[in-house]
């Protein structure tokens, strides 16, 4: 009962925070709403007996990625981004397609779910998480890290190129 109450409060905070992050015009405020939302997500993970995921949610998303966003926004003088042009349909379309795919997958998962009596999960020890991740899904981990390396090299290349043009 206690867990349920806390869960609904946190879920409300997460949803409202995310909605405000999207609608808020000011980038710094938007980031803070998103951080709030990520924080309540982390506590939800903790309630689901996944403290490791909760810690990583805060360390990586709220603590590293959002800090970098904030840093970039503060470093660049954006002027008045709210007066900028609204994105055209050409930019909308790929994003809309991709979100349609993920929403469709989510709906499929919800519809096909077997409603069985969900027992309260026990806390998963870190050792078990590591074993699952690196033994059973080792290939996926390697693929993801390769992909990150590609992205890194790509970003470096693009950054170098634009600096060369500036000279």
């Amino acid at each position: 009962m206690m867990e349920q109450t806390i869960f609904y409060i946190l879920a409300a905070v997460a949803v409202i925070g995310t909605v405000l992050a999207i609608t808020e015009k000011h980038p710094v405020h938007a980031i803070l709403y998103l951080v709030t939302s990520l924080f309540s997500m982390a506590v939800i993970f903790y309630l689901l007996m996944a403290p490791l995921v909760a810690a990583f949610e805060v360390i990586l998303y709220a603590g590293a990625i959002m800090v970098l966003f904030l840093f970039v926004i503060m470093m660049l003088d954006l002027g008045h981004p709210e007066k900028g042009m609204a994105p055209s349909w050409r930019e909308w379309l790929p994003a809309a397609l991709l979100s349609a795919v993920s929403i469709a997958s989510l709906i499929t998962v919800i519809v096909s779910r077997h409603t069985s009596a969900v027992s309260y999960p026990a806390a998963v020890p870190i050792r078990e998480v590591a074993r699952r991740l690196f033994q059973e899904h080792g290939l996926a981990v390697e693929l993801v890290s390769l992909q990150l390396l590609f992205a890194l090299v790509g970003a470096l290349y693009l950054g170098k190129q634009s600096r060369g043009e500036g000279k």
Partner: protein
Amino acid sequence: MTAFSLDITLFAVKLGLVFFVILTLAAYLVFAERKVLAWVQDRKGPNRVGPFGLLQPLADLIKLLTKEDVVPGGADRWLFYLAPAMAAIPAILIFSVIPFGAPVNIFGRDLPLVVSDLNVGLLFFLALSSIAVYGVAIGGWASNSKYALLGGIRGLAQLISYELSMGLSLVPIVMLSHSFNLADIVAAQKTVPFIVYQPLAFIIFLLSITAECKRIPFDLPEAEGELVAGFHTEYSGMRFGLFFVGEYINIIVLGGLAATFFLGGWHGPLLPPTVWFSLKTLAVAFFFIWMRGTLPRLRYDQLMHLGWKVLTPLALVNILITGWWLALK
């Protein structure tokens, strides 16, 4: 009294005691810093309020509470109000995972002397320490002042530079103790503290936490010689006080963490465990004050260079060596 209400009462007493001790200690650390700096600089330091100036923190508190709370024009009001709390709260929360003594037996039940015995305690510390920077960055940004903004940006850049080496310097500790739980880490140092096996990791950790609590030589977000007072230039009264106390709470907490990770936690001969823990924590805090009296401030790019090009590669090599050592043992 039922067993459940006894548990709750014991927990509440423990919580209240921790809060009281930490806040008092933070206030007196300010006093100790002024005294030690005065000795270093051949002065007398505060000696007017009470015997030996011991009531000085109280006088400072009254002064801060009665001062006018100024909000600069054009400031982002809400964020300006909230930023000091964003800086101070994570610092206090980190202490909740630090075991500050051996478990004691009260009323027939074992009471662990740690507020929350979390199995991901080490990660909890890393998470909160990266969250603490929002107070600095947002406070600097919301002040609508160039000095404060520069201080805030420096705070962010500093976090990015030291965070990685701080996390990596703790990996050997996890490898040696096979746990993320701080109580287990202390238990693993029953005979030999980890500083003996991991001197390099200890030095990297010490440098990183000096940057974390924004102390000289890494006090770039404040840098009073260049930025007036950096991110808290526009703050006055108790809001400034909260930033200030938050910094000193951070020193105590980070000292406690250094003691827990490398100096054997509450283990020690003869003296009671809690005394050993306090001694080790205060020794690290004293080291911070001593460093402030001795070293000049580093330049902004020097810190980033140190963090990214020296400490992080060193920490990675240290992890590799630890791995070899553990495999060959």
